[in-house]
């Protein structure tokens, strides 16, 4: 499945637009990593645990979106946007939006 943030795919025509698809992910982190990150925040710099947490949840959201698009019979998702990031108490929630289409 083609997933892109372009609005159309050069060289391929969109046969049918199936509407918006969404993927959401909620990812929890271990209390120990939260504690260590809390200490790390005193010194500043990159919070690698949170970087990894958000990357994982983004991949999960994309995978969920792909499953939804496939269920609709699409073979591509265009115009993908990431939105609504919230980190509350070490828990990351985010969603990804896109337009499911059928390419020729």
């Amino acid at each position, binding site marked *: 499945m083609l997933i*892109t*943030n372009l609005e159309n795919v050069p*060289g*391929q025509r969109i046969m049918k637009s199936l509407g918006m698809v969404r993927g959401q992910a909620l990812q929890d982190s271990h209390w120990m990593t939260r504690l260590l990150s809390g200490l790390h925040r005193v010194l500043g710099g990159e919070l690698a645990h*949170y*970087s990894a947490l958000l990357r994982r949840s983004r991949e999960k959201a994309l995978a969920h979106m792909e499953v939804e698009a496939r269920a609709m019979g699409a073979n591509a998702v265009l115009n993908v946007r990431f939105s609504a*990031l919230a980190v509350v108490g070490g828990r990351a929630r985010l969603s990804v939006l896109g337009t499911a289409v059928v390419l020729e």
Partner: protein
Amino acid sequence: MWEIGLLVLVPVLAYLFGTITERNHYRSLAHRERHLVRLPICDDPHSLTTLYPPPSSRLVMGSVVVTLDLFKRVVASLANRLLGRVESYEALLDRARREALLRMKSEALRLDAALVCNVRLETAHVFQGWRGAPSAVEVLAYGTALIPAERTRTAPAASGPVLAPPRRPLARPTSRPALNP
């Protein structure tokens, strides 16, 4: 007595470590940017993709969460009230954006991309700190990596979420005309 010592020592240590981390980060950013400058990126969603129609395209992203040290954070949230411009946050956002772009670029280079199109940057506050001042920011850079046909064979197998090459590459001209036919 030792409580007062701790009250002084912790911010001083935080300031020192934070400053060293920031300086090292800037140095590493400059170094990696020199290496990755060979990969062009653009934020145009249309023209370049038709100029260079992809036989294989892939969503690439890079993200980073960075935070200021305690001392600068407290000073910045005080300065937020008194002054208009908070330079430590400017530096923080600058670091985060450059780091996110670099990560996106290195992911694209791993796929042997020639160009990353339609690059978007998104910023989010990860923690809401004292007095509503953000204590950490996350920057996400994402775009579509265009991988030329002759390179797709040597490109590594799909590791992230995404993509098969189109079934008929370069089959039909798009409705949108190319800039330089």
